[in-house]
């Protein structure tokens, strides 16, 4: 199977600082990858360079034609007149000029996209009034309605309580499996993702290690990546990385 996304020796410099150096990995259709690493390691930068929002200083990126993107947080007031279904509808053709005309076909597509992520109940509510987890689902529907082969999510699990966190992960894993959409999401904690990740992309110190979780997340491997000793501990089925 051919790769969907390929980074070959990608480096990013921002404001004279080297943020990422010699990043190389491939993502295949339907793969679920987690971009894991401590705060400030360059996870968001990695997502932004893949999206083409910032230029790379070195290397080559091969991208699929359409990438769905779910940003970390919506900055939307509760009084903004965009209902969940308006937001999803914008995912279809929000980049085009002119108004969109309502049609049965459009409405069915929007309702189906909302139902696919379990957001059908609040289709008529304003997005600014929804909770963080509800907004996440609506934004996933917004990203998916344009039928991307790759879906990128920036810290979708941040600030969610544990039950909702697990629900979102389940929804995303199901999408990856059933629709052959490659899902890449960033997170500072790998534990909610361990059971669903096909690949971990561990970012630390501006460098990236990638592969199966058990191969990458080891005391030796991560110590080399961080450039100093860290311990990888397994506690009650959870993985904890501790600076040594």
């Amino acid at each position, binding site marked *: 199977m051919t790769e969907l996304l390929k980074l070959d020796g990608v480096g990013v410099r921002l404001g004279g600082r080297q943020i990422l150096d010699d990043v190389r990995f491939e993502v295949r259709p339907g793969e679920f990858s987690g971009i894991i690493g401590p705060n400030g390691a360059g996870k968001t930068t990695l997502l932004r360079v893949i999206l083409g929002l910032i230029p790379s200083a070195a290397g080559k990126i091969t991208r699929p034609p359409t990438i769905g*993107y779910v940003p970390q947080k919506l900055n939307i007031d509760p009084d903004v007149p965009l209902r969940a279904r308006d937001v999803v509808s914008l995912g279809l053709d929000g980049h085009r000029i002119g108004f969109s005309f309502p049609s049965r076909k459009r409405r069915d597509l929007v309702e189906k996209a909302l139902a696919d992520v379990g957001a059908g109940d609040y289709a008529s509510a304003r997005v600014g009034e929804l909770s963080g987890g509800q907004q996440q689902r609506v934004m996933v529907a917004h990203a998916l309605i344009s039928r991307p082969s790759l879906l990128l999510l920036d810290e979708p699990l941040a600030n969610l309580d544990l039950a909702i966190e697990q629900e979102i992960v389940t929804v995303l894993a199901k999408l990856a499996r059933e629709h052959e959409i490659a899902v890449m999401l960033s997170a500072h904690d790998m534990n909610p993702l361990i059971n669903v990740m096909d690949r971990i992309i561990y970012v630390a110190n501006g460098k990236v290690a990638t592969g199966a979780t058990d191969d990458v997340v080891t005391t030796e491997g991560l110590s080399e990546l961080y450039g100093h000793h860290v311990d990888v501990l397994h506690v009650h089925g959870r993985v904890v990385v501790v600076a040594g």
Partner: protein
Amino acid sequence: MHYLVEPGFLGSPSVRTALIVGTVVAVTSGVIGVFTVIRGQSFAGHSLSDVATTGGAGAFLAGIDQFWGFLVMGAAAALLMEGIGVQRRRGRDVATGVVLGGALGLAALFLYLGTLKTASTGASFTILFGSIFVVSPDTVPAVVAAGLIALAVIALLARPLLLTALSPDIARTRGVPVRAVGIAYLMALAVDVSLSAVAIGAVLSTALLIGPAATALRLVKSPVKAMAVAAAAGLAATWIGVLLAYDSYYWPPHGHGWPVSFFVVALVLAGYLATYARRPRRLLPRSPHEEAAECSPA
């Protein structure tokens, strides 16, 4: 004996001009105002209207119609604000404030010189607070055309503007030229502000921009409905304002009509306050964001 519609209302040419100009202004302001509130650029809108004062005062000194002064100065200020940094959220307020301060200083000079020239304060009053009854019939075609152009720009950019409001990064990944769209929107805003400066004065033009839009956002949930309700609310305030101002010639002090701008702005405010009487039932519990906003000072 007084009537709701005093004799001669519809027969008066100045009333007819006022109603035409008022209609164009109310509809344009209602539609553009919804985007202004969504984009969080109410301050930019208000500043453009203040800056338009400078243009109006300059035009008066130069002996040309104030509309052109409002328009040129508003557009120039919009470009300047964009150049300094309106695209960044924080830079936006700073850039707006800097341009605003400079322009108002110039307006003070122009208005002072204008007062010396005519030995009256009538022109200053018209520039600042407008008078829809004294709009020159020669300007009407330009006003209508400018309003239609601004509306066409917004109609073309409606979806990219909404997508950008949702998330500028998503808009960029979908290929929207976010900055160019922002400039086009600001230019449409500058045109609209010039129109309402003609109608209700440079200082008050924000009232028609923000008031009806804010009213609509309290009443309806979808973007298209919000634009329709805002336009209708602005239209109602303008028409009833024109009617009351006409009638007020028969009110005390007799023979001196009250300023039409007062009525329009008062009606806009009354409409907004009336929405509080009917608190919309919520589908969902309040978001933490909203509570934080209400707890923070001012």
